[in-house]
Structure formats: structure tokens, C-alpha cells
């Protein structure tokens, strides 16, 4: 019995973790400061593998941070700034209490401030890292830029968010990076491909928010602080990569044009500049005024055969993208005042179209309604008083659907007063066995270049036929099943009678010739084989297998449910139509 007794919980995984309260004490910070620090530095709790061991035998719910993380926070210069701020607040309070207004003023001038540049650099050592993590910052900035200029947060923050989002949108337009867009009930989702990274963000609709009470704005403000810094640096870098001037400037030509028109309407030049930028109707000034971007063609390397296919696929994809980028080129669109201007202008400009709106809606309109060369006018009202013959009057969904379909869809479905086809999410990628809405199939057919005309009825008929076939099959199966059942019953009856000792009425009936379907037999055999093999699985694998199969079955069930629902709906529609006729 030699040696010291080993104490419990002094080695092993316990030493890697620290509870939140302990961490807070170690850093000597109040909870709000600790929270802010965690947000800014991107420190988050970790779930230990063996919670009970780490929790020293207790099973109480606790959050654990990695001890390394907390140690890493110890050396953060911002912690010192937090403490300075605390002191500042205390001094300010004292000065107020003593009504020493000069002191108050002086203190306010010397309010401690901190910069987050080094944190951004530390969290995202390379630019691509930062780009990868930009989704949340975009969402947050777009949200903050829609806030009213009163109340919930500093006006400067809101203005900064607005500026950054406008810069971002301008970049996306300039680089034509937008790929997908989706109008949801929450807001509008956009997805852009920036330097090979897919960036998705959500923009809320332009309504005032009713600020809920159970939302802590301090947390959101802290996040926004970080996000604005990050987004600013990213914007700078992106503008640089496109040779654009960084605080963005309008093209000189465009600027002069705009100036002529609107200078009287907008009082402050500084304000109106952002407005003009946010109008998104003009291109930006470039550092080096190159006439046009020269398309660099990839050099072709001699490749092996395996890669050849890949290369071809990639080239094809690239070509597709190029065509998508020029989707709206040559279109001249006019936005009516009731449609969401910013979103549509952004979209149309992203794909090379020209766009304008009524002068009174926003600064930066480039042509009037009366312009004869307008090809499309986007309208979201039941009817329009004065219609020009040489342009289409379409609903806004057309633009969004075109972007997602990567082709110009036929405009007939989107005319005024027409019931719109469903708007589908471009983010869903159906795998095999998933439910695919018929509208998507239709669009896919269009993309393949199939003829869109008189498709509907044919399809319906086809569908019906298919359904009938299926039904027939089902019936056949059922019949067979029924046959078997009948036989079984007969047998059972006989058995019963026999067991009861009754003498059977001996009778020979002409037997039916049972036609064995060889294919089916084979199938059955295979199924049995599989069943038997499954019996031999190990316990662990069996569990996993069962789980996977359960998931698969559930998926199939859901798909079936959706199909059934759709069918019921279509039937109801059809019967309605018939009733009308």
C-alpha cells in the first residue's frame, strides 16, 4: 500500500474544462462583460464527452468552457478597456452627482473606446476564413439597417450598418455574384458566390419592427459591433479586388447625370450620397479606369482522361454561370411604386438589366415611365390605368423565379391579375426518393429546353395514366393477396374440420394452375435472403441499420403524404373547374 493516494478529479478531462462562473472569477469580470468578451472573441462553451467526469461526479447542468480558451482570454487587451469603461462610468456618475458639468463634459470627451481590428484578424487569420463566416454578420447588419433611428440602439450603428450593407450590395452588383434568391415569409434570402464561397443572407421586409421585450438588445448590439468591423474590412478587401474605389464612389458620368436632376430635392450632400449609392442604379467608380474587364480564359492543360470529364463538367458549369450573369441584359425594367424597390433593383442590376422607378419614390431613377424602350414594367396591383403596348406588365415574382431558374421564364404566368405559380425555394436540392413538386419538374423541363407549350394538360393526362397503371398494379397485387388469403382460409377450414374429427366430404375439384411469375419469385427470394442476412447482423450494426432504415422510411412516408395532399388538392381544383363549366 505504498504511494500517495490519488485524488479524484485532479487529472484527466476535468483539467481541460472550467465552468462559466469559475472562468468569470478567473478573468475578474462581471457577467455582462464576460458575455461581451465571449461574443467578441468567439469563445463558446464546449460539451465534454463525459460530462459527469468533468462535473466532478455531479450531474447538475453546467456549461463548460475550455480552460485553454479562458487562458487565451486572459491576455486580451480589450479586457483592460472594459475595466477602464467601468471606471469611466463610475467617475461620470460621481460627477453627475456633484453637478460638476465641466467634469462631466471632460469625462465624456475622454470616454474609453476600443477597436476590434486585432480581434477580427485573430479570429479570421485569412480572408477566406472571414468570408466563410460572413452570413450572420450580413443578416445582422441588414436587420439593424432597417431599425428606426430612435430608441433601441445608437443611430451611428444603424447608419454604419446601412452604409456597409449598401456597400456590400454594390459589390455584389459589380461582381455579378448573386446566384439564388428566395422570397420567404420571413424576408428575402439571397445567395451569392463570392470568391468561391457561398454567402447567404436574409433581408427582412421593410416594415417597422415591434420590438419584443424578451430580446436583449445589448447582446445583439455587441454582435453588431463585431460584425460591422468584420464586414467593413471584408468590403474593403472585396472592393480592392475589383479595383473599385473603397469608400464607394459613383461613376463620374453617372454622378454628373444624377446631380443635374436631383440636387434641389435633397438637402444635405453627404446624406444624399449614401442615398444615391443605395439607389443601386449606377455603377461605381474604378481605381484604374479599364474599359472592360478582360475575360481571362483558362489555359488548357493536357489532362488525364479521368479529369477530362470533370473539367468538361466544370467548363459547362462556368458557361452556365456566364449566361446566368447576363440573364437580364438588354431588358429595360420599370418598377412601379408598390413593389419593393431595393430588392428588385438589386436583382435586376445584378444580372445586367437596366432599372428605373418613379422619381418620387427614390433618388437615382434613370428614366421615366413614359420611356418607349421599356421592355418590362413590374407591377403589383390588380390593374393599371394606362398601359403601353410595347411592354410587359408583370408581377415581381417573375424576376425572382427567373433568377432561380437561370432562364427567362415565359411571362404569361406572371401577367397582371393572374394567379401566380408557386414560388419554390432554390435551396432545396431533391435527392432520389424525395418529393419534388410538379412545378419544379416543369421548370427543370424548361431548363432542359423542352417545349413549354400545352404541357399542362398532357402532363395531367400522363399523370392520370400513370396513376391508373399504378392503381391497376395495386389491384393486381391485392387480387393475388386475396387469392392467397382465400386458399389459406380453405386450408384452415379443412384443418379445423379434420382436427374436429369430421369426415371430409371427399371431392376432387379441378385445381387452378398457379402461374409462377419468375421475376417475382426471384424478388421474393432476394428479399428473403436479405432478411436472413439482416438476422445475422451484429447488435451494434443492427441498431444503426434500423435507425437508418427508420429515417428512410419516414422520408418516404413524408414524400407520400405530400404527394397525396397534392393529388387531393388537384382533384379538388379539377372538380371545381368542372362545376364552373
Amino acid at each position, binding site marked *: 500500500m505504498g504511494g500517495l493516494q490519488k485524488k479524484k478529479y485532479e487529472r484527466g478531462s476535468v483539467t481541460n474544462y472550467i465552468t462559466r462562473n469559475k472562468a468569470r472569477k478567473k478573468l475578474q469580470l462581471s457577467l455582462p462583460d464576460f458575455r461581451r468578451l465571449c461574443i467578441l472573441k468567439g469563445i463558446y462553451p464546449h460539451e465534454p464527452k463525459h460530462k459527469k467526469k468533468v462535473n466532478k461526479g455531479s450531474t447538475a447542468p453546467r456549461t463548460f468552457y475550455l480552460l485553454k480558451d479562458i487562458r487565451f482570454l486572459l491576455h486580451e487587451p480589450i479586457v483592460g478597456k472594459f475595466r477602464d469603461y467601468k471606471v469611466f462610468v463610475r467617475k461620470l456618475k460621481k460627477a453627475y452627482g456633484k453637478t460638476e458639468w465641466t467634469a462631466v463634459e471632460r469625462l465624456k470627451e475622454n470616454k474609453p473606446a476600443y477597436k476590434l481590428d486585432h480581434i477580427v484578424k485573430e479570429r479570421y487569420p485569412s480572408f477566406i476564413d472571414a468570408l466563410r463566416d460572413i452570413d450572420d454578420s450580413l443578416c445582422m447588419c441588414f436587420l439593424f439597417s432597417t431599425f428606426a433611428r430612435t430608441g433601441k440602439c445608437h443611430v451611428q450603428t444603424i447608419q454604419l450598418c446601412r452604409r456597409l450593407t449598401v456597400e456590400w450590395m454594390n459589390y455584389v452588383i459589380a461582381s455579378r455574384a448573386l446566384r439564388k434568391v428566395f422570397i420567404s415569409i420571413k424576408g428575402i434570402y439571397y445567395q451569392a458566390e463570392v470568391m468561391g464561397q457561398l454567402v447567404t443572407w436574409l433581408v427582412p421586409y421593410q416594415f417597422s419592427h415591434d420590438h419584443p421585450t424578451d430580446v436583449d438588445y445589448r447582446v*445583439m448590439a455587441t454582435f453588431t459591433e463585431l460584425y460591422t468591423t468584420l464586414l467593413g474590412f471584408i468590403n474593403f478587401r472585396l472592393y480592392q479586388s475589383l479595383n473599385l474605389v473603397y469608400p464607394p464612389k459613383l461613376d463620374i458620368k453617372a454622378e454628373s447625370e444624377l446631380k443635374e436632376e436631383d440636387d434641389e430635392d435633397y438637402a444635405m450632400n453627404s446624406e444624399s450620397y449614401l442615398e444615391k449609392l443605395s439607389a443601386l442604379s449606377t455603377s461605381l467608380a474604378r481605381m484604374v479606369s479599364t474599359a472592360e474587364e478582360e475575360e481571362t480564359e483558362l489555359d488548357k492543360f493536357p489532362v488525364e482522361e479521368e479529369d477530362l470529364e470533370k473539367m468538361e463538367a466544370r467548363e459547362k458549369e462556368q458557361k452556365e454561370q456566364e449566361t446566368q450573369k447576363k440573364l437580364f441584359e438588354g431588358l429595360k425594367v420599370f418598377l412601379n411604386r408598390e413593389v419593393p424597390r431595393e430588392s428588385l433593383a438589386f436583382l435586376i442590376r445584378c444580372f445586367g438589366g437596366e432599372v428605373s422607378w418613379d422619381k418620387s419614390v427614390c433618388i437615382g431613377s434613370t428614366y421615366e415611365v413614359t420611356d418607349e424602350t421599356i421592355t418590362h414594367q413590374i407591377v403589383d396591383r390588380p390593374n393599371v390605368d394606362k398601359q403601353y403596348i410595347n411592354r410587359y406588365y408583370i408581377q415581381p415574382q417573375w424576376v425572382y423565379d427567373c433568377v432561380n431558374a437561370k432562364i427567362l421564364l415565359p411571362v404569361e404566368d406572371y401577367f397582371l391579375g393572374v394567379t401566380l405559380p408557386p414560388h419554390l425555394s432554390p435551396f432545396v436540392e431533391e435527392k432520389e426518393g424525395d418529393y419534388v413538386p410538379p412545378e419544379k419538374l416543369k421548370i427543370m423541363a424548361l431548363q432542359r429546353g423542352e417545349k413549354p407549350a400545352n404541357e399542362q394538360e398532357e402532363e395531367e393526362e400522363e399523370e392520370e395514366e400513370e396513376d391508373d397503371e399504378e392503381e391497376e398494379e395495386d389491384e393486381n397485387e391485392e387480387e393475388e393477396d386475396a387469392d392467397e388469403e382465400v386458399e389459406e382460409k380453405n386450408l384452415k377450414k379443412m384443418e379445423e374440420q379434420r382436427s374436429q374429427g369430421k369426415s371430409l366430404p371427399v371431392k376432387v375439384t379441378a385445381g387452378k394452375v398457379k402461374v409462377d411469375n419468375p421475376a417475382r419469385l426471384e424478388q421474393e427470394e432476394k428479399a428473403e435472403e436479405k432478411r436472413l442476412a439482416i438476422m*445475422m447482423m451484429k447488435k451494434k450494426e443492427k441498431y444503426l441499420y434500423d435507425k437508418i432504415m427508420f429515417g428512410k422510411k419516414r422520408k418516404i412516408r413524408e414524400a407520400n403524404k405530400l404527394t397525396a395532399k397534392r393529388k387531393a388538392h388537384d382533384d379538388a381544383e379539377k372538380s371545381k373547374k368542372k362545376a364552373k363549366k
Partner: protein
Amino acid sequence: MFPRVTFDPGCSHALPLTPDVPTCSVMEESSSSTRRSEQEEEMEKQTEKTVKKRSKEEEEEEEEVFTFNKKCTEEEEDLSDSEDSVFSGLEDSGSDSEDDEEDEEEEEGSADEKAQNAEYLKVEPEQTPQIKEEEEKKKGAVTEGEEEKQEDEYQHDSSDEEDIRNTVGNIPMEWYKDFPHIGYNLDGKKIYKPIRNKDELDDFLDKMEDPDYWRTVHDKQTGSDIVLSDEQVELVNRLQRGQFGDVNFNEYQPQVEFFSQDVMLHPVTNRPADKRSFIPSLIEKEKVSKLVHAIKMGWIKPRRTEDASRGRYYDLWANEDSSILARHKMHLPAPKAPLPGHQESYNPPPEYLFTDEEHALWEQQDASDRKLPFVPRKFSSLRQVPAFPRFLHERFERCLDLYLCPRQRKMRVNVNPEDLIPKLPKPKDLQPFPTTQSLVYRGHSGLVRSISVSPSGQWLASGSDDGSVRFWEVRSSRCMRTVPVGGAVKSIAWNPNPLVCLLAVAQGSVVLILSPSLADRQVILSTERLLSGQREAESVEEAGPVKWSDVEGEELSQGIRLKIQHPKAVHQVTWHAKGDYLASVMPDHSSHLQVFIHQVSRRRSQNPFRKNKGLVQCVSFHPVRPYFFVGTQRSVRIYNLVKQEMTKKLQANSKWISSMAVHPGGDHVICGSYDCRLSWFDLDLSTKPYKMLRHHKKAVRGVAYHRLYPLFASASDDGSVIVCHGTVYSDLLQNPLIVPVKVLRGHVITHDLGVLDVTFHPTQPWIFSSGADGTIRLFT
């Protein structure tokens, strides 16, 4: 700095400047107007008072004292600044009037109104002291109210050098009530009261006759009556109406902005600067020194220069050096927010919308259980889409997730389920094995507990709960014989020796040895010989717990030859492969008398165990070697009968062993248990099961090996018999191959019991099973 001076438009001020020079005094509109209104009020009061006073005088002289007194006090209260002017004599001095005149002139600001002024001048001497009083009072107010005045005004200030005829000063005049004089003039002579002999009647007569009575005013300072002129009456009337005294005064003249943003050449006043403005302030010095000290001590920091770099962006990633360490390996990036599906669309396909039931379900569910955090909605056009009410919440929750949610790396299993299925040889390649049900043996009325096939494979014996043993011909499913034994048959076993035709039957506490005589003569003879050999040994038999007895009478004719009486109920009987020894099991917790081994040829029994090692479930002989397998509740013990010791103990890893079978090779054992398992032991490998098969859904009742083919089968309460292929290799390094090949169904489950016993045909790949439904089935 120009001194900020307010002037009252109600009275006149002389400015030394000519009107064409831009004036630099300001009339503050608001203050002047308020002051104006104040003075108007005062004037009104004054006039009212005088009028009142007069009427009072008329009434009573005695009261006059009181009223005077009162009035004076009132005056003191109201017009404290114009005290001295009250006592200024009846007539105004010339200088005073001039002063006024000048003021007027200044106010008009134009020379061409001199005519009017002349008129005014004419009127001036006739003005009653009352009015003078008003004027002076106004001026007094001004002089008192203003700190700084033009030089002129100081020069002509008449407040202390007024021409006073009565020098008594500001005293209540009632003090002179009893005197004939009312005061003294400047020379010190008495001023006598005018002779007043007017009584009430005179007064009345005056009132009636004198047309000017209404404009006669009593001056109490001099005691004389004064008749007001027309102008004066007019003035009184105007003041009563709240108008300015001066007819020509324009109260709405255009305002002159004296103080504007333009810097003027000249100061507003030329008052010399104070001395203190040239001397450094001590207080300031003290303050400055304090600040200096604070700065020296570092208490006050100099004003921070506005950081130009703040809010400026630059190329942060210009030099992507690796000096800043990337986060350590444990860093888990936050998962991206899930992308929206079709349900979230503002105009989703109709199948994604909720039906009423789904909506009700959604409402009922707890927020965490919901599949979708929102209800899909459909809008016919984009303009009808409202703001999403939970947008802020969702953003906030995302924030919380980012900094509060513990992160853990979870490996997602990405396997093709098909890969998980073990690759087994196809059953087709492992033929022969029984596949179809070919015969059903009916006849028993109770459940058939046990079956056994004769070594020749021609006969099948079955024992049932209906108290009978039946013999069937295998090929024809005909019941050849029925032997009633008078109780439920627990177990039945055919002697494996092909030269003997004997059957052991366990019924109650008796083991019966039956000779069914279903064989050719040779066999029957040898059987007889074996049984007769017993008789010889009969005498040797000692009295023990087991009693052997011969059967006589009817039972003998049935074929029952011997009865072995046991102390307790026998559950199982089994033969040794040679056919001479027979083992019987009487499960009992408490005693060591659980297993007996009988030798038929010598009619001898013995209990091999001295100790109770647990409840014995089943026993079996090793097919070739002198080993004896005893299956207790949880384990199988293997005894060497020659050495009389235990050689191995197999842990079955199951709760309750139900049955056991030994491979014809003797190196493998399978055990069925009531907890649905079948364990295969490789005796050379380990005492733990080589394989556990959980094929059955319910308790396994019986297991069996085929004697020739590599097959084994298990029967279970779920009504199925599973036939497995189990190849045993002679090579010790190769493990046995176990493949389930067929699930045989046919038995009907009655009273939760399915198949009770299973046995293979000795030569053919056929299998017999007996079930609780009273049937025996043959699968080929």
C-alpha cells in the same frame, strides 16, 4: 461686448446718437411688451384710485383720513419706486417737460412731426399733477429698473431736484389734519389750507350747478380743487381704456434689431471698463492651479485627439502572416443557419400548406417539439406579405446559439445501409435444407411436448399432454399406434442404437421404457434380449431412490416394458449414443437428486452428483466421448464421467437456458434460452458463446442438430422454426460458418405457445416440429 439694455417704449429715452446712425440698443419685443402692460395696469390703478378717492372725499371728511392713509399705503406697496414723484408739486418744472419733450422727439425719430410736438407743448402746462405723476412714475420706473443710462439722463435726472412746493415730504397728509396749514414752502413759510367752508349742501349745489363739477379733482397735497382741462380728461379716458397716454405714440412701430450677428464698429455704451476687468482674478488663478496640479498628477488627462483611424477600414489581410496563431485544434466553427425549404415560401405549393388537423396539432405542440417553427402561409401577391413577427426573436436566438450553446463534434455516420448487411453465402448454395411444409401429422388433442424419430428414420414417436404416445409412419403421416400412458408426456426419446427398438417416455415421476415393436424381427429380438438381460440383474438391484419394475397386464400388451419410478417429476430423458444408458432430469432447487443415469441392461441407476449446482434444465451425453453435459439455469457444465470431474463450464450469457443440443462431432454445443437467444459454443475456442443469434421474437423452446448435414434448427414460441446452416471445419483455425437459411412457419400459436420441440430426420434433410396446436409438421 455690448451691454444688453432693454428700453421701455412706454417712456421716452434720449439717445445721444442721431437717428441716421445705426442704433445699437435693442428693444426686446417680449420684455418691452410685458413691461408696457405692467405700466398700463399701474396707471389704471392710479386713476381708479384718484377717482375713488374723490368720491370718498365727497362723502365724508372723517373718512378721508382713512382713505388717505389707505391710499398711501397702497401706493407704497404698489409703486415703491415712484415715492418721491408722488410729492412733486402741482406744476411740472420746465426742465422736466423739456425732458419729456426730448424723449418724445427721440421716439418719433423724425423731425417733421414738430407741429404735433408744438401742440403737445401747448397742452403741457395745463397738465394736472396727476398726469405728471404718471409720467414721472414711469420715468422713475425706468430709472430704477435700468442700471446704465445715457449720460444725458444723468445730467437731467430730476428725481432729487424736483420743484416741490410743499416740502413736507412723503408723509400721510392726515398728519396735518388738525393744522391750518398743510406744509411749508421752500422758504419755510407755512402753506395754508385753502379756506374750505363747503359743507354738504355746498357740495351738493356745486354738483347740481357747476357744469365742471365732474372734472373737478381735489388735490390733497395742496388741498385745492383743480378743474381738469379737456386734454387731461381725454388723457384719463385713454388711460382708462388701456391706451397709451400719448395720442401720437405708435405702439406698433417697426422693430429695430440693435443686436444682430454683424459686428459693429462702436460699442453700445462708452462706459469705461471696470477696474476688475484689468486685474487677474484670484478665483480663476486658484482654479487654474488646481487643474494644473490635477494634470501634473495625471488625474486629468489631456483631451484625446480624435482617433482618425477609428471606423476606417484598411486591408486587414494584406500580409497574411502566420504569426497570429490559428485557433487551436479544438475550435468548432458554428454551423450555418439552415437554408429555407419550400414551406417557407410566401407562395408555397399547396401541398406544403397545413390542413386544419395539422394546424391544430401544431398549435398543441410544444414549441420545441414542432417540426416547423412557423406556419406556412400563402399570399396571392408580394405586396400582401406582412412583416414576420418573430424575426427579431429568431435573430436573437441565433445570437444566443452562437455564444451560449455548447458545441460538440458529432460524427455523422454516413454509411450505406446495404454495406452494413454482412455478406453471407447464398442459401441456394447451402442446400439441402428443409424449405417447405410437406406433411402434417394430426391426431393429438393436447399440445405435443416432445417428438423423437427412430434411428432408421421410418418412425416418429410423439408425446402429448393428452396422455398418449403416438407412433407415426413418417412417409405416410399415418398414426400406427397410440399408447395411453395415463398422464401428460414431458419427454420422449428413441434409443439411438439402430439394433434396438426402444423408447423412453417421461410421464409424471415415472420413466417408461416402451418397445413399440415397429421394426423387423431381428431388431425386436435384440430388444427382447436387452430387456431380458435386465431381469437377470434384477436381484442385484439395491433399494434406492429409484425403483425399477416390470409391467404386466394390459400395459404390457401396449408395449410398455419397464417402469422406472423416480422420487420426483421427470422432465427430460435422453439416451447415450450406445443405447444402454439413459439419463433423466428432475429439476429441483433444493436437492442434489436432480439427475439420474440409468443402465437399462443392468437395471441400475445412479446419481452422479453429490452437490446441487443449480436448477438442472437439460442433460445430454457426448456422442463419442465419456462426457456428460448438464445445462443449468445460466450455464452448461461438462463432466468427464470416467474421471468423475467437471472439465468445463460454459457461460451462456442468457437468463434461462431451455434446451441444449450437442453437435454430432461433439465439439460444438447450441443452447436455446427463454430470452429468445440461441448461443453457439465452440468448446475448443472458449467458454463464452462463439455466436449469439437473436433470430426469434419469443422464447426458444427447442434446438436440434442434424446428424449428417451441417444444419441446426431452433423452435420458438413465436411459431417459427429457423433452420441455420452451420458448417464446422475440421481445421481448428477456421471458425464455424453460421448462416440462417430458412424460416419455417406453419404452427398456430395457441395459449402463447408456438413450437415446442424440433428434431431432424436422421438421414434426410428433413425436420419435424411439434407445436402447441396439437400437430406435428414435417418440412422437407
